[in-house]
């Protein structure tokens, strides 16, 4: 046991020294670098479109369902064989079909399933498309104009997605 305590004592000193380097200096320098102009426009994420929250009112596009309790993030963790949750999904589908005036089989998967973060900024082009008529009607904008805004908010390298947060802000500005 003597050897253990001797090593632990050396370990405490090594830990303290490394804490100064790894726990203080390293994050501080990375924080400093994050302020270098041109590297990241927005390390503070103020006004970010990386995350989406529900905007009140039918003149906005609706993001995916969320299980997050803001300000924290999170998902449902519900499994496929969870029958209670299967009912929830079916209710969501019915509700969205009613809201957008489309058949239930036109409601895409991403519209009825909760995202992992609960803050997913994206919806599928299909989900955006079925929301266009409602948004145009309530906001008073022409359908073509709304479609243009959807196209402008479409992004992604491997998977094509529509950024709801950016889209709703574009609607504000339109």
């Amino acid at each position, binding site marked *: 046991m003597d*050897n253990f*305590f001797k*090593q*632990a004592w*050396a*370990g*405490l*000193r*090594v*830990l303290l*020294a*490394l*804490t100064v380097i*790894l*726990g203080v200096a*390293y*994050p501080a*320098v*990375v924080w400093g*670098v*994050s302020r270098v102009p041109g*590297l*990241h426009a*927005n*390390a*503070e*994420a103020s006004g970010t479109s*990386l*995350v989406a*929250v529900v905007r009140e009112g039918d003149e906005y596009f609706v993001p995916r369902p969320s299980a997050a309790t*803001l*300000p*924290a*993030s*999170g*998902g*449902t*963790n*519900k*499994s*496929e064989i*969870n*029958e209670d949750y299967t009912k929830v*999904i079916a209710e969501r589908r019915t509700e969205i079909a009613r809201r957008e005036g489309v058949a239930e089989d036109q409601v895409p*998967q991403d519209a009825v*399933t*909760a*995202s*992992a*973060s*609960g803050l*997913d900024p*994206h*919806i599928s082009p299909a989900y955006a498309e079925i929301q266009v008529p409602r948004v145009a009607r309530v906001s008073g904008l022409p359908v073509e104009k709304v479609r243009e805004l959807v196209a402008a908010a479409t992004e*992604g*390298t*491997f*998977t094509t997605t529509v950024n709801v*947060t950016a889209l*709703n802000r574009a609607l504000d500005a339109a």
Partner: protein
Amino acid sequence: MSPLVAGLVQVGILVAALAVAYRPLGDHMARVFRVQETEDQKHSKVELAIYRFARIDPNAEQKWSTYAFGVLGFSFVGIVFLYVIQRIQSVLPFAFDRGTVSEGMAFNTAISFVTNTNWQSYVPEAVLGHTVQMIGLTVQNFVSAAVGLAVAVALIRGFVRHQTDRLGNFWVDLVRGTLRILLPMAFVFAIVLIALGVTMSLKSGVDVDGQTVANAPVASQEAIKELGTNGGGVLNANSAHPFENPNEWSNLVEIFLLLVVPVALTRTFGRMVGQPKQGYVLLGVMGTIWSAMLAVIWAAEANGIRPLEGKELRFDVAASALFANSTTGTSTGAVNSWHDSYTGLGGGGTLLNMLFGEMTPGGVGTGLYSILVMAIIAMFLAGLMVGRTPEYLGKKLGRREVTAAAVSILAMPTVLLIGAGIAAVLPSTQGALNNPGEHGLSEILYAYASASNNNGSAFGGITVTSDWFQSSLGLCMLFGRFVPIIAVLALAGSLAAQKKVPVTSGTLPTTGPLFATLLGASVVLVAALTFVPALALGPIAEALL
């Protein structure tokens, strides 16, 4: 681009990036660690200052037992330090009225981060301030990975040294691994991640269209979270959170980071033993199992009933499955989608990845020493078949060596099955589950598999804040980490003490397809024989429903 093609392109980019990094990083790591005692070793000024402060003679080498006491002593003070700063969080800066962390949670979290598990029973946005994240968790993200590296290097020295009782100096291996490998890479990739959009804020949150979303100094911890195969999210949704993983490119960078060190260590191993082929064959086995499991998980998810539940749209199914397979195949445990919402087969695949014992390719250091231990088991089995004393890399595998290897392999299933077994019959567990039936059992199994293998991912629906879960999972993490480490160091000590056995016509070559098949089969069979009964009642039953 169809989803299949898009997924294959991403897999291709990832594999290409790993191939480019393989030799330079593997060779660099081989240069960082001294192989023979007689080799000259230069220390930097910072390193010398640390050794002076800790009163360590960096040129003195240690026996295996002293090396092991170093690992245990360092980890012990790490746990105590992490526990204490959580318990006094309310007086630390950047705590944002999140208060002190409760006893059970602080105990569990302290063990979790020191053992490189990074299991999280807490919601970071509600429980931890930036100070504990930085001076506590970030530091352990580095050093717990460096401990794994050190143990792996000590085992390699056991093979390459002859008739000595010296395995190196733990403190030197720890400090060099941290400052010469992990820190420079983490720094560079933290900046890469920032450039890709990862946040770095000292504020507690940010206003988004009238609602507050928590923020943190994410980038600095994100880089080492992946690079050190740690996996503890700075925010609750981990790498699914857009602040931690904003787009498809940051996602690929993060998957690359969590694979690169375990993969390149096979090169380091080959270099240090003087036969790069010995490393390639290990990589071949790891890569084959990783690829097969990716195919299973990806196909299962693509054919699920609701494949997007618990996944982020920007990652779709393919990049979610790629992350899930890599994070469970490396003991990382970061997630960019919730495995709990996966199909029976897909979620079962992530579970099986952990049950292989985290060696496909495994964690930083831990993956390499785990597969070397499995290689010893494989050679032992081969020796039984032909009736010869088995050898590996010029060392005889006698009773001591095989016993140490067996103890190392059996520690994980023992604590896992005892813990999960008790949890399954406790009446209180029913209330902790998030899903019914077979999937509920999978949630329990997954929790204990994750803790015992030091992975840290979860079937996250299960509520693990009761005293039973906090303490039993904490103990699984401790035993799952340190029993194998002690056994591996004892093994290294006994190997180093031996003479070199000359290669004869009767020696089974360990660079060819025969050995690769033997090793791969051992990995799969040991897991299958141990866990099929438990898996049959959980994920297998669910997949057949």
